[in-house]
């Protein structure tokens, strides 16, 4: 089972929801795929001296000038402009490469091979409660974390409840993270930005045919637009977390707030029940 927690706007509470959900449900594995700035591990702390750290690699083209005729087929093919056929050689912009393998395929002279370059790390550990967490970390200067997210997705087990903390927005990285999910939890906040950015995510999830429910975080802040929008669109609000000083305080100390607020342990368990029920009825909210 794979549940992905995502949001349109950043800072709405993806990490708050995913860490609390993973903490309160049995047999979970939490994955932070916001590889540009992962933060789940700051709350859902893996034991430090027992981390498994793997290199995340990306294959980028290498041009063999002996065979290259500067025909330009590779650079015409690359939609990310990672290749540019210049006067005496083909330039390779490694950071723009999305590792699709297409350029070697279209090269009529067999002049393109690939080399691996390190673009980040995938770190796995267990919390003191023996709960596993994996997070990706993209190197500074790299353009896309999609490859790391794909590598992380390849490791998930169907026997556990995989909870993915997605990058914000509707970028390629968010798409990669939420792809193949059985259910998505859309975290939003009752502010104009919260609503506006959420609309794009709703469109994306409907396109991808992934069932989802809405969690309103910081409820009580802002206005009613979010509720009006959800009603108009027929979206189910599956949980509300109030705008509360106590929750903010616990968050600020780097703690999982429900650990210290037992009434929320039940609420997150209840949230999981709603998710699994909705998942079974499947057509909900698509």
């Amino acid at each position, binding site marked *: 089972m794979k549940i992905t927690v995502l949001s349109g706007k950043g800072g709405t509470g993806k990490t708050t929801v995913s860490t609390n959900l993973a903490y309160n449900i049995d047999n979970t594995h939490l994955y932070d795929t916001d590889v540009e700035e992962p933060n789940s591990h700051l709350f859902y702390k893996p034991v430090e001296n027992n981390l498994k750290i793997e290199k995340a690699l990306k294959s980028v083209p290498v041009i063999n000038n002996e065979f290259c005729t500067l025909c330009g087929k590779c650079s015409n093919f690359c*939609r*990310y*402009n*990672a290749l*540019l*056929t*210049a*006067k*005496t*050689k083909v*330039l*390779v*912009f*490694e*950071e*723009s490469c999305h590792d699709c393998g297409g350029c070697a395929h279209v090269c009529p002279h067999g002049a393109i091979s690939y080399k691996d370059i390190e673009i980040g790390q995938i770190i796995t550990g267990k919390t003191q409660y023996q709960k596993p967490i994996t997070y990706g970390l993209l190197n500074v*200067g790299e*353009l896309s974390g999609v490859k790391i997210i794909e590598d992380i997705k390849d490791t998930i087990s169907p026997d556990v409840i995989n909870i993915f903390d997605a990058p914000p927005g509707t970028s390629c990285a968010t798409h990669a993270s939420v792809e193949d999910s059985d259910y998505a939890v859309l975290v939003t906040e009752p502010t104009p930005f919260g609503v506006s950015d959420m609309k794009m995510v709703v469109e994306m999830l409907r396109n991808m045919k992934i069932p989802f429910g809405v969690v309103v975080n910081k409820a009580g802040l802002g206005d009613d637009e979010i509720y009006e929008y959800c009603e108009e669109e027929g979206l189910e609000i599956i949980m509300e977390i109030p705008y509360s000083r106590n929750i903010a305080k616990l968050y600020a100390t780097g703690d999982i707030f429900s650990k210290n607020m037992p009434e929320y342990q039940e609420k997150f368990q209840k949230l999981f029940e709603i998710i699994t029920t909705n998942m079974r009825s499947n057509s909900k909210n698509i």
Partner: protein
Amino acid sequence: MKIAICTIGNDLSANLDDRFGRSTNYLIFDDETNEFTVIENSAKNEGSGAGGKAVSLLNENKVDVVLSPHVGPKAQTALEAFGIKAYHYGEAKTVKEALDAFKAGKLQEIVKPKSGLRKA
């Protein structure tokens, strides 16, 4: 010599564009004939790597020099590979002002920094 200028318009009195790779148009001035043509920048809507593609377009139009604002690192690598020189248009506001300043030798060449993130 053919001189390209980043512009939002279609003639010598037009304002300059404040981007290089995503410039709206390039006005290409031939200083031997004193004539110019304007080309639309077909690279301006690229998802990534517009700069490199724009340099390629300038090369197809046999441009020797480009008068531009700040040039991104990939575009700079590409300019070097195609042997096109870039000069910062400085305080100029219109195509004509930029051209006059260039002819008077008042513009500064944009050179590639010795270090940075660029790997190509």
